[in-house]
Structure formats: structure tokens, C-alpha cells
């Protein structure tokens, strides 16, 4: 297969959008947290927990969207832990985030073993099926890529538009952005920085968990321990790459996913015979680091990111 053949095939772009979907959810979740001034390093563990919670809920008999809701609530509960420690108590967001990732991952694996003590391979569920949109899905290349995906992928794109609208067009969005730029100004308006930040962390964590649940409810139909595999950390890089803007973050996630889909296909070609497969698997992580390096010069970091706010302190 030629490189050009890969780039012009509909299946390649369809795969890119599919790979991008969980990243979009989690990146938007992280973006909400960071716009409010909180770096949420719990993302990796929250995605693991979301992937498991959504899957086990469906396995226990809930409908698929019920599984998504359970994942969202799980994420919000974990987000609450992060929010309490990092916002009113103002503890180091690095330590709290890493601690939460360790806790969420351990709790997930523990629950898995308690619920399914004797299974050698995890049970499968009926995952989301592709829902082609009439007419639009018949467009060559673009149609199968964008309009023959599962409902959860459509939800990811709708979410980006929704979050962008809330952030830039509503008083709530203004308050969230201000909490991350100039919390003192928010407090001067009589609003509670604590409430805004805690809310942002909880909602953002909920979306991260849905990103994890995409893996078990849409991309695959089962749960594996190493499933999330650093995607959360990649999403943190994507937020930086997207300059903390929802639209750019979406673009970054799709670009990144396209590259990931490309390297998978490249392994089948002549290049794959020459290079060891580990080099291809490294690509997403190396790409994330490169994205951070490239964007570091013009990054527009929220001014109060990682700065705890204490009312009355100047």
C-alpha cells in the first residue's frame, strides 16, 4: 500500500475520527478545568475509572446511554475529590492529580477483581453501533469518515461546539474563564471563585470519564487494564497544543488521531518491515512532546493556572 493510497482511503479517515473521539471528550474536560485555573492530572485515572464504570453498568443491564451517564457521574465524583483538595484547601495540583490517578486506577482494578473474581477474560457487551446519517454519509471519503460513526462520536463533536458556546457566549463561561485568568476580579463581582472552580473541575472530570467510557462502549466492547495507556497524558498535551481553545483542541485531537491511524497503517507497508514496531507505538508520545515544544513559545496559558485563590489575599 502506498502512502497516498492510505491518505485517500475513507477507512483511514474514519479510523482517525474514531481514534480522536475519546481524546476529544477528555481534552475538552481538561480544557474546562484548566480554563478555570486547575490543572487536573487525575485525568488518566478518571479515564480508567470511566471506562470501567460505563462498561460494568452496561454489563449489569443498563442501556448504553445509561452507561455513559454512570461514567459521567463517576468522573464527577472523582473530580469532586480533586476539587476539594485543590480548590478550597489549595493543595499542590501536581501531587493531588497524580495521587488521584493512582487512587482512581487502584479503585477500578480492585472493583474489577471484586465484581469479576474468577474470569480469565472480561465479558463483552453490545457496544454502540455505527449510525450512518442519511445522504451525508454518501459523500465520498468525507461521508464515511464523519457521518457513519457511532452516536458517541457525534456527541463528542456536539460537545465541543456546546462548550465553546458556553465559554465564550454566556455569563457562566465568562465567569469560568475569569476564574482562570483573574480570580480576584471574579471575587470582586461577588461570585465565589471556589464554587466556580470546583464546578469546572467536576464537570471537566465527568467529560474525561466519558472519554474513557468511549473506549469500552464504542471503540471496543470490553474492559482491559492497560486500556487507557497514557491517553490522559496525551490529552494534557493536546490542551496546550490547542492553546486552551475548544476548536483548536478539537483540530489537534483529530490531527493527532490521523497521525496515529497513519502509523498503524504504515506498519503494514514496506516501512513497517524496516523499522521495529515499537518505533510506531512511540510516535503518539513523541508527537505529544513535540507539540508541547512547538507550542510552548506562543502558548496562552490561563494566567491563574495552578495558582490557588484565597479571598482577602492580594
Amino acid at each position, binding site marked *: 500500500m502506498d502512502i497516498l493510497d492510505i491518505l485517500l482511503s475513507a477507512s483511514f479517515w474514519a479510523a482517525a475520527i474514531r481514534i480522536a473521539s475519546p481524546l476529544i471528550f477528555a481534552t475538552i474536560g481538561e480544557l474546562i478545568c484548566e480554563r478555570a485555573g486547575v490543572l487536573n492530572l487525575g485525568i488518566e485515572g478518571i479515564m480508567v475509572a470511566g471506562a470501567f464504570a460505563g462498561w460494568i453498568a452496561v454489563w449489569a443491564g443498563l442501556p448504553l446511554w445509561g452507561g455513559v451517564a454512570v461514567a459521567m457521574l463517576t468522573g464527577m465524583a472523582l473530580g469532586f475529590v480533586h476539587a476539594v483538595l485543590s480548590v478550597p484547601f489549595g493543595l499542590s495540583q501536581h501531587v493531588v492529580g497524580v495521587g488521584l490517578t493512582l487512587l482512581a486506577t487502584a479503585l477500578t482494578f480492585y472493583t474489577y477483581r471484586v465484581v469479576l473474581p474468577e474470569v480469565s477474560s472480561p465479558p463483552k457487551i453490545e457496544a454502540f453501533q455505527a449510525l450512518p446519517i442519511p445522504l451525508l454519509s454518501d459523500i465520498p471519503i468525507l461521508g464515511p469518515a464523519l457521518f457513519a460513526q457511532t452516536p458517541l462520536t457525534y456527541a463528542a463533536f456536539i460537545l465541543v461546539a456546546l462548550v465553546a458556546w458556553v465559554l465564550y457566549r454566556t455569563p457562566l463561561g465568562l465567569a469560568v474563564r475569569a476564574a482562570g485568568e483573574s480570580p480576584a476580579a471574579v471575587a470582586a463581582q461577588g461570585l465565589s471563585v471556589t464554587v466556580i472552580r470546583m464546578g469546572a473541575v467536576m464537570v471537566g472530570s465527568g467529560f474525561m470519564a466519558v472519554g474513557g467510557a468511549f473506549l469500552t462502549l464504542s471503540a471496543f466492547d470490553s474492559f482491559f487494564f492497560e486500556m487507557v495507556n*497514557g491517553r490522559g497524558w496525551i490529552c494534557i498535551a493536546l490542551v496546550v497544543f490547542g492553546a486552551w481553545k475548544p476548536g483548536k483542541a478539537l483540530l489537534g485531537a483529530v490531527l493527532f488521531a490521523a497521525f496515529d491511524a497513519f502509523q498503524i497503517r504504515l506498519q503494514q507497508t514496506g516501512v513497517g518491515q524496516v523499522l521495529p514496531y515499537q518505533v510506531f507505538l512511540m510516535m503518539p*508520545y513523541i508527537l505529544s512532546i513535540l507539540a*508541547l515544544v512547538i507550542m510552548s513559545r506562543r502558548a496562552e496559558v490561563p494566567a491563574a493556572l495552578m495558582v490557588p485563590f484565597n479571598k482577602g489575599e492580594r
Partner: protein
Amino acid sequence: MRLEPIANPTVLRRYGPPVTAIAATFLVAAILALIAGGDPFAVFGQIVKGAVGSKFALLETLNRATPLIFTGLAVAVAFRAKLWNIGAEAQLYAGAVMTAVLGTGMLGWPPALLLPTLAIAAMLAGALVLLIPAVLKVRLGVDEVVTTLLFNFIFLLFVSYLLEGPLKDPMGMGWPKSPRLIPEARLPRIVEGLRLHWGFALALIAAVAVWIVNTRTTLGYEMRAVGQNAEAARFAGIPVTRVILKTALLSGGLAALAGFSEVAGLTGALTLDLSPGYGYTGIVVAMLALLHPLGVVAAALFVAAIFVGADSMSRAVGVPTYLADIMLASALLFMVLAILLTKFRVRRD
């Protein structure tokens, strides 16, 4: 609510919260054990028995604590200077790779010469692995948390490549492992007949060495100053960039010693499952030790005991071993909160 600094903390205020944090950790574990159908007292009893109940168990705990002391020191040194090194896992493997490359026959030297060479080479490898994120941080302002985390994944894939390619054991029967180290490259046991190698002694020496660096040298003072307030440190004439880079070299080198000690002391070969997350657990160890190098030794022993104990508890009672991971993660979160509460009072608005 708001936080109010406490000028003269009472004894209760200073030790109450940390003790409560430990108690809360055990309470969480007890509830989770009950949910899993285990009797909490039996669970904790088995953990203690499995960790220190016999000579074999005790030695196993000391062996397990060895890499955790190194990674705990690595994290403690870095965090004290506010260099957020979450990549001890990668640095550990860098040290292990170096040990396997040089120790499997490339250098046919006597042990007295070979072992120090291996340790120093391992430290250099680990230091270099952390130097990249540290340079990106000081030169371009790239957040080191994400880069060190991503390096963990990259480096593990690199090790996987080595074990299937250049470092593959021809006698390994397809199992991804390196050839065995030559006998001269193996760390001997401290007491003949007891399953405890010199890596443990090296870890204790490293802890004392870091303590001396912290308290008795200019670098130790500069690292703390940079960690407390980089701007003020710069204003006071401390070369902040150079201090951060030196911290990175020291931290990466310490983490790499964990890899050296595991390969040369315990396994005798490089494998892909050499570390079950010692790099990440090092963060818990360092935080529980309040970043104090001698506290790291105590915290590593505590953490190792819980891990070793949980293994045998799980065999005996049937509660999953992940209970140990939950205990450590919640201990970390409770403890950072407790430390805050030793210094601040919570007031209602």
C-alpha cells in the same frame, strides 16, 4: 471557608492530623475489605504477618523496599526543588538497561572495578533521561510533568525493542529478557545464606548521602531556595537554571540506581516487568516521608511491607491485592491534606 496560618502550633495540632490521616487510610481499607467480603481484622492481620511475620517475609520486605528507597529519594530530591519528576519509572529502566548492556560480558573486569562502573554508568543514563525534560523546562518552559510522564511510555517501548532486538537473550526461548549478567556484575548478598543483597545497603548509603547534600552543602541550600521561591532565589543571586539542571541529574541518577540494584542484585537480567510501577510508587514514598531523605527509608519500608503483606493476604483471605494500591494512594491524599492542617486552621467566612 478560608485558611488561617497558625503561629504557635500545639503538639496536638502538629501530630494530630498526620495520625488521623493514617487512621483514615486504614478505615477506607477496612470498608473496602468488608465490601469484598473480607474481615478487616483478618485482612490487616494477614498483611502484617505476610510483611514481617517470618524471616523470609521480612527479607522480602527489605528487598522490595530497596528500589522504593531509590525512587523515593529521586522524587524527594526533585520535588524539594519543585521539579516535578514523574518519570522515575523511565529513569529506573535507563539504569537497568545500562547495567544489562555493560554487565553481560562487555566489560570483563573484577567485581571491585565492575560494580562501581556499572552503578555510575547507570546513574549517568538515568540523569540523561531526566535532563531532556529539565532542559525543555528551563529553556522553553515546557511543563515537565507531562514530558516525564510521556517519557515513561516511550522508554518502556524502547526497552521492549531492545529485548526483542539487540539485547535479546539467544537462550531466552522467545521470552523477552536479556542474557544473564556475568557473575562479576552481580551484587553479592550482605550475609551469605540470607536473601538480601548489597543494593539495600547502597540504598541506605544513598539516603544518608542525600541527607548530607540537603543539609550540609550549598547545592542542598540552593535546591530548597529554588523550590520555595524561584523568583526570590534568582533575586538572591542563585543560578536557578543551573540548580534545576543539577537537581535533575541527581534525581535521575538516584532513580537509575533502582534499576541497577534490581538487575545486579535481584533478577540478574533485564526484563520488561522489572518494575511494577516503582517509579510511581516513589512519589507516594517521597510524600509520606515529607520529602525528607531519611524519612524516605522509613516510608519505603512501610510501603514495601504493605505490598508484600497484601500479596500473602490476598492468597489467604481472597481480597484483591489492589487494596494495597488503594491504601497507598489514599494515604498520599490524606497525608498532603493533614500536613496542610498542621500549619493552617480552617475558618468559616
